[in-house]
């Protein structure tokens, strides 16, 4: 029997091949239709038990994973750090091992520390899916962004995609850069030097310091949420100032010589990084992104559930 496509875990896109990324997107296509059925459920993961382990706040991602799991007929349990033994000081591994002792099959983890997902994946038998770890990666978000781009343009190769905003602190930005470059897109980043440090050019992306230049260059903008705590930390002078210089506004989009689409991973700060009439306007693919998120997560769950019995042989990263 041939090897499973994805190995045991999905930690990030950095170590996936172009073929693996493309296979996930292709697998997501038929799953789109499942969510349009009168009975939105297929029995593919019947009998699998999945734990959603969320140590950080999340609405969209957690609900999206939960829908994906339920539509595949898996049984799911949600664990949030508040109100659990995590508050009593239990370590991540102890929490996971206790869950595993109850015979679970997969863990979806969101954690504030970069590397938490891999750390966990290397220590438990269950499949681990990274739903965002610190500033490291958020692979399913990038995959749904790629699927949305492919829906709109018919391809990802050759597209010019600019990631705008707080790139430095963003796991969405990192996963997007890996995924986009792997599929042959041109990638740029745009933002103030405090949030878009020069190191990103090492990843093979170009840097714009003016949003107008980015809009003129790009086929698609992926606008990141400006995390408000950054302002207190002194990365930007004020929200209004940020909006004036880097905000994606209708006026700026209207001046561009070609049509482009605007993505946003959510949650949005309307009037800060993106104006309401852009978020709700014809350029926006923000809601299609959310729809695609369920299909992508179904595809990842389905592919990983193939299992890899030789997990202990050489760790999880046999990609």
């Amino acid at each position, binding site marked *: *029997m*041939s*090897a*499973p*496509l994805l190995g045991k875990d999905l930690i990030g896109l950095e170590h996936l091949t172009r073929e693996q990324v493309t296979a996930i997107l292709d*697998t997501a*296509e*038929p*799953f789109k*239709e*499942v969510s349009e*059925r*009168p*009975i939105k*459920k*297929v*029995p*593919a993961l019947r*009998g699998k038990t999945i734990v959603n382990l969320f140590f950080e706040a999340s609405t969209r991602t957690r609900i999206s994973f939960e829908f994906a799991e339920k539509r*595949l007929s898996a049984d799911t349990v949600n664990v949030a750090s508040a109100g659990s033994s995590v508050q009593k000081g239990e370590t991540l591994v102890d929490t996971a091992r206790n869950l595993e002792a109850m015979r679970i099959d997969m863990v979806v983890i969101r954690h504030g520390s970069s590397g938490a997902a891999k750390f966990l994946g290397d220590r438990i038998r269950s499949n681990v899916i990274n739903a965002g770890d610190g500033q490291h990666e958020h692979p399913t978000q990038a995959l749904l962004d790629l699927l949305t781009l492919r829906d709109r343009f018919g391809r990802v190769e050759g597209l010019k995609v600019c990631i705008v905003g707080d790139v430095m602190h963003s796991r969405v930005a990192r996963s997007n850069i890996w995924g986009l470059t792997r599929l042959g897109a041109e990638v740029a980043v745009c933002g103030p030097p405090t949030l878009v440090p020069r190191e990103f050019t090492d990843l093979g992306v170009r840097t714009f310091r003016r949003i107008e230049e980015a809009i003129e260059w790009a086929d698609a903008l992926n606008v990141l949420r400006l995390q408000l705590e950054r302002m207190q930390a002194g990365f930007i002078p004020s929200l209004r100032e940020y909006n004036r210089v880097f905000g994606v506004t209708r006026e700026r989009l209207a001046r561009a010589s070609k049509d482009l689409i605007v993505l946003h991973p959510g949650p949005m700060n309307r009037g800060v990084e993106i104006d309401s009439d852009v978020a709700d306007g014809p350029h926006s693919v923000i809601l299609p992104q959310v729809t695609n998120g369920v299909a992508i997560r179904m595809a990842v769950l*389905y*592919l990983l*559930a*193939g*299992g*890899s*019995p030789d997990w202990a042989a050489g760790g999880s990263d046999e990609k």
Partner: protein
Amino acid sequence: MRIASEIVEHAGDSPLIIVGIQRRGVQLAGRIVPIVEQALERKVGRGMLGITLYRDDIQAAGQRPVVHETRLPPEIDGATVVIVDDVLYTGRTVRAALDEIADFGRPRRILLAVLVDRGGRELPIAANVVGMTVATAPGDRVEVRVSEIDGSDGVDLLREDG
């Protein structure tokens, strides 16, 4: 095509929907539909079933089978649904197709039409319309070629050490 005319005989008065099982059943259904429409002098619904997610061997470890698209017309309740596939063997694919159709609605009747019946059933399933019956051994492979996918039409019986 004889299969098409036998489907016409089974058609009855309720709305008729012909669905092919991915992948070669879809091509066969595509050829059957216009013949049936001409004979019945009415429109026939069409659809396709990607039964992968309903397979009973999906929990087995290993490579995930490719998932194919499912498209069924909405008016499936009360209709006569004809499932079309290329080869009928264990019957497990048909079992999956029946379960998947049940998740979309409640047809008045479901019929099964296959190009080749090679025997070897593992479930109590029989076809209503059979193109040809072939006696085979468990190790044999029966492969149907359709020009849309394979470049030519035909049925091959592959027997090891034959």
